[in-house]
């Protein structure tokens, strides 16, 4: 796709320019903004270029990492839309731009992604954002220090119910239902548990939650084996497309901006191959930023739909990525941020995930919430690269989050857990 390549190339140049402009003004945002506002961004860059060797600086920033120690990389992904930036970075040339010859390898499920990552067959992998936390602590696998320098997507999931339950839109009617989630250590599991618990159902008693691989969700829903699921797309939209289910609620309505999938690697990858790690993280963050722009979403849908990647009808992928979709209830919904892409790994999100792992009994005893979140969610790596590439990065690593109208204070994780009436004993 030469067009995309060109525009991204320009984007990168622009990013470098803005980084230089920023460096001239230091980190004083006010000075830079008022100057840019007065003369306009491009004029400002041109004015600077007259006194500053802009092209040399650009080249230097692109090369400041040094050549990657290893260029042939294998990156695992599970074929869902959450992995969009990781996947599209191959056909749209983001890996190649940073000197990497990376292949994305389709993986049958997260347990296999975890094992192949632990065994070194994958250099880095698409994972669910709770996984590197769980792996670092040795919950559900051997303990191996993992890092998550970038989130892939925020939002982008939904609760789908079978068409048989069109009249049961109130979750308190869901007693006895069987739900599917893709993996135990997943936002899907934690959000579903949170959601039903807010309606007074104990997820361990009143409903059954089964781990079902995403591709099997639709067929299980049709067979009546599942009453509903909270799963990654495209399988929510696919259920509507096949006329089997409807979208009950988007997860963004549970927690606006919640993290979902992530880009993760063993800590050893980053320490043994620092330049490769840097280049890879740059490609991922660059691709994630590219994916977050609404105007690129149609092009991306076409790039990732073929058999080599998601192997899905383009219309289904496009509905997920553009947010103009059929809800299965006869309406066309327009929710542009149904799925969004934002790489910054807020450590407060890690703390929240740990509180839910503790709440539902996945981990026990004293938990060093912030310590683990800071060890795994490498916010400063993401910030450095976002700034290098000229994107705005948050200055803080923590923020408070609002989930179903209840605010989460990352400084009080234990009090937060205690505040819930329904939790595992």
């Amino acid at each position, binding site marked *: 796709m030469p067009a995309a390549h060109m525009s991204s190339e320009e984007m990168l140049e622009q990013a470098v320019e803005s980084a230089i402009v920023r460096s001239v003004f230091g980190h004083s945002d006010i000075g830079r903004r008022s100057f840019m506002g007065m003369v306009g961004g491009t004029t400002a860059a041109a004015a600077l270029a007259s006194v500053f060797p802009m092209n040399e600086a650009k080249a230097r920033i692109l090369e400041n990492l040094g050549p990657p120690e290893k260029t042939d990389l294998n990156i695992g992904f599970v074929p869902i839309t959450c992995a969009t930036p990781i996947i599209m970075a191959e056909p749209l040339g983001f890996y190649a731009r940073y000197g990497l010859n990376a292949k994305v390898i389709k993986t049958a499920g997260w347990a*296999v992604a975890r094992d192949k990552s632990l065994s070194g067959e994958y250099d880095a992998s698409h994972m669910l954002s709770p996984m590197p936390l769980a792996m670092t602590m040795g919950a559900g696998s051997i303990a191996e220090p993992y890092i998550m320098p970038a989130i892939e997507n925020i939002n982008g999931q939904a609760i789908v119910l079978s068409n048989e339950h069109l009249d049961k839109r109130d979750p308190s009617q869901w007693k006895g239902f069987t739900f599917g989630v893709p993996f135990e250590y997943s936002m899907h599991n934690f959000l579903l548990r949170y959601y039903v618990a807010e309606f007074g159902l104990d997820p361990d008693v009143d409903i059954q939650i089964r781990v079902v691989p995403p591709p099997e969700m639709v067929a299980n829903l049709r067979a009546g084996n599942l009453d509903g699921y909270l799963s990654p797309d495209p399988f929510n939209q696919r259920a*509507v497309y096949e006329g089997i289910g409807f979208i009950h609620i988007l997860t963004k309505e549970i927690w606006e901006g919640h993290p979902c999938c992530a880009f993760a690697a063993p800590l050893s990858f980053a320490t043994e191959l620092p330049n490769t790690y840097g280049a890879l993280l740059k490609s991922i963050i660059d691709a994630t930023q590219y994916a977050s722009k609404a105007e690129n979403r149609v092009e991306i849908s076409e790039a990732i739909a073929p058999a080599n990647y998601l192997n899905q009808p383009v219309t289904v992928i496009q509905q997920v990525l553009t947010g103009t979709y059929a809800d299965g209830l006869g309406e066309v919904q327009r929710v542009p941020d149904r799925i969004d892409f934002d790489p910054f790994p807020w450590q407060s999100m890690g703390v929240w995930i740990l509180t839910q792992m503790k709440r539902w009994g996945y981990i026990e005893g004293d938990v060093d919430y912030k310590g683990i979140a800071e060890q795994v969610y490498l916010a400063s790596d993401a910030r450095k690269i976002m700034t290098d590439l000229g994107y705005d990065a948050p200055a803080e690593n923590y923020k408070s989050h609002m989930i179903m109208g209840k605010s989460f204070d990352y400084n009080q994780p234990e009090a937060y857990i205690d505040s819930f009436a329904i939790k595992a004993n």
Partner: protein
Amino acid sequence: MLSENKRAAIWSVTLLLVSLFVWEISIPAQQITTGELTEYELLIGAGTPKAGVPPPSQVLVKAWEELSNPFYDAGPNDKGIGIQIGYSIYRVLTGYFMAALIAIPLGFLIGMSTVAYKALNPFIQVLRPISPLAWMPLALFVIQDSEASAIFVIFICSIWPMLINTAFGVAGVREDWVNVARTHELSAFKTAFTVILPAAAPTIVTGMRISIGIAWLVIVAAEMLVGGTGIGYYVWNEWNNLDLTSVIFSILMIGVVGMLLDSALGLLQRRVAYTE
């Protein structure tokens, strides 16, 4: 009067045609909305066919498409059916021959020595009933390579039928034949090769035939689990897309390849057969 073979062939073909016909007419035509579609109808794919069991004619079209270009390679996750089957056969044969290399000599030992039999029997009895796929997570973890793990799983499931049949065949060689060898003062080595091996060969090959069948069954499941390449991955990838036409086509291919592997061993079996 036609020969028995010809009559059987006529029956086979008739049965095939009748079942294909019944299959074809029992698939209701999909109601595809035509004319102007609303935006909603477009989004739910009202103008396109839904996932469902396809009629045989559609499977044949798919088969023609796939088989006319079996060796294309569109990246690590999308390869032609020929390449996928090639990967699967390579894994099966590698694991299988490694198993044969160990199972047949070991089976000989067990068959010839009662002590070895008694010593090894408890291990065999415990390990034999373990589903090959139960080894998969352990293999992935210990071997740390999915390719080698798949081969290991084939190895571990192929070994038992060959081992047990070899031991059984060797132990069952007629006493007087071995005694004749002894009166001719043949060395133990020579006795094994010139008397026992030919006598036990039909039983050994039966074990090998059972093993190859199991190995082919297992590789499909293993590849579905691990992904990557192979016919099992192909089925999983098409299942991902709810593309039942491709799934049925690949099921047929799995059947055909399994049959070919079995008939190859069947041929070998006829060559080593003897009448007393």
